[in-house]
């Protein structure tokens, strides 16, 4: 199964320069709070306009007919142009979308233009369909079809891969999440045993990309996992590696994985930093990031007689990783900024 076949809330956009961006798609229920908030904002704006007009009526003393005309015009303007104007001039966001951290963009990753904003907002009414009459609830009520069921929109979104409603399909847009993803930064270990143990790992042991990624994931999350469970998880990898490295069986699995992480991601970086202005020595270890493809280099180094370290079970007290927001893609920039793939 290819990785992209997995069901997930993401969409990929490849630019003409062959740069691939990943966007997190906002589905109907992620968008629902934005819709409710926009309704509320529109309601508040409408009441403000109404009060202003009432005050104006006292000052100018216009007739009841003109008051009704102004009321209808403001209702129409708010209902039809609220989304259009905000999305055009606020980079695909309305106040509701801004608060819930979603944004409308073109399916090719560009910011939406006025034409797209117009189409998607004018087709909003079709997404409310079928509308149900008030008569359904009371036979005495007027036959006004004003209660939206949103079923067309829900069905349309369920059937499209990018959760596009009718307006989105017509305008070639999609709604993405702009919330920043949280990527743990450099992790530091206070326990000196980590560095010490990393020194005992055979120098010719090379990690595969997937192994490096799995260990990185473990170390980044380990602070939030209870110690017993942490040891249990680490043991999956540690058990074969302890045999391979000829380490003692009572070596803490958690500690071994931390040592592997230290050797792979911290010690190498430090080495490269210290050598950054000098040419590397001929026997310097090759620096590889976890994303480097190294399929051929499986962990096949036979155990050389290494002095077996005797660092057993007590848990090491690594501080929880400090999480700092890192933009994930172009869509992660702040609300008023432009999305530029």
């Amino acid at each position, binding site marked *: *199964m290819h990785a992209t076949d997995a069901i997930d809330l993401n969409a990929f956009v490849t630019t003409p320069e062959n740069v691939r961006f990943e966007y997190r798609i906002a589905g109907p229920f992620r968008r629902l709070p934005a819709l409710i908030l926009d309704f509320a904002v529109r309601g508040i704006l409408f009441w403000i306009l109404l009060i202003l007009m009432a005050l104006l009526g006292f000052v100018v003393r216009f007739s009841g007919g003109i008051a009704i005309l102004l009321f209808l015009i403001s209702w129409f303007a708010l209902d039809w142009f609220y989304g259009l104007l905000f999305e055009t001039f606020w980079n695909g966001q309305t106040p509701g979308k801004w608060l819930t951290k979603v944004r409308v963009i073109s399916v090719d990753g560009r910011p939406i233009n006025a034409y797209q904003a117009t189409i998607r907002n004018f087709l909003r009414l079709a997404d409310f369909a079928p509308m149900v009459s008030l008569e359904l609830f009371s036979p005495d009520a007027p036959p006004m079809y004003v209660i939206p069921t949103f079923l067309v929109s829900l069905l349309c979104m369920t059937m499209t891969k990018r959760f596009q409603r009718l307006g989105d399909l017509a305008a070639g847009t999609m709604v993405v999440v702009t919330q920043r993803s949280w990527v743990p930064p450099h992790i530091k270990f206070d326990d000196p045993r980590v560095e010490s143990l990393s020194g005992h790992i055979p120098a010719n042991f090379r990690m595969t990309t997937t192994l490096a990624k799995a260990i990185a994931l473990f170390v980044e999350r380990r602070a939030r996992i209870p110690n017993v469970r942490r040891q249990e998880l680490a043991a999956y990898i540690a058990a074969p590696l302890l045999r391979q490295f000829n380490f003692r069986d009572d070596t803490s699995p958690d500690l071994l994985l931390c040592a592997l992480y230290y050797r792979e991601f911290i010690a190498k970086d430090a080495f490269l930093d210290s050598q950054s202005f000098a040419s590397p020595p001929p026997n310097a270890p090759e620096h590889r990031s976890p994303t480097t493809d190294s399929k051929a280099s499986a962990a096949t180094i036979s155990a050389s007689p290494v002095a077996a370290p005797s660092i057993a079970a007590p848990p090491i007290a690594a501080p929880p990783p400090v999480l700092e927001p890192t933009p994930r893609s172009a869509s992660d920039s702040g609300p008023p900024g432009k999305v530029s793939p």
Partner: protein
Amino acid sequence: MQLDKTAVTISQRSGTDLIDLSLLVFQRYWTSIFCLAFLGAFPFAVANFILLWPLTQYDQLVMSSRELGEAAAFQTRYLVIMTAAILIQAPLALSGVTYFIGQAVFGDKPTLGNVLTAIWSKLGAITVIQGFLRMSILVFVPLAFLFQSPVFRPEVEIPLYLLCLCSYVFVVRGFRPFALEILLLERCPIYINKNDKSRIAYRKRSSWLHSGMAFELFGMHMGVTIVEILTTLSISLSTLFLIGVLTGIWSWGPWMDLIFFPFILWGIATWGTIIRFLNYMNSRIHTEGWEIELKLKAESQRLLEVAS
């Protein structure tokens, strides 16, 4: 089976993302899910139809009642009881769907035979936990009483059926939602020998899985219930609109009461089963670092293959 190559990307998600993701899962496996849901729900739907039939004789009930004087009130009563019955029965009836999604996530697509065999092998445990302790089978007792005596008795129906029974099921399911996942997918037995250290009993496993995030789970349960109510309303009103357009009858009639509304409720319950499974995955990721376990297990397998 490649443990790190799953059909649904394993990562921690928010509640709304889980609900959205459930739509994509439904989109991919809708035929199998529909068939299994239909097979599981059909016997329960037929039993409900028979047992609740007397409650739909609104005119007769109006004549025999002193408390409720209108047919509409009896219709509301029937709809509330029908809704409660389906929601209580749904986890048991849709256990096939739970098993199917659990397997499908790891790339296996079990056949109907596989699903039935898996359920049969755990039938005792499922019956005890879901059928009796969580009321999915016991709910037929009050339904049978209503069948025998459909006259409205507010002193029994409101405090006993509605408040006690429904609240009990709602709270239990809210705080400990993953009973079927533990029984069917993790295959934990109800009882184990004290000397058996290789397995974990249902009660202990349930406590481990749920106690760490009980209030988050209950919050999610509340949120999903609200979403399900809104979706049920949306689909029911749309169905009514469609019936109105096709037949010219614009009111909530017997067809809605007896056929369409139960059908919609079973559909919503099936969707709820998918959301519950995704929430189960999310909880395991949160409490146990499940996505790490899958990745580390897969790497361990690769290391052992290389070593051998």
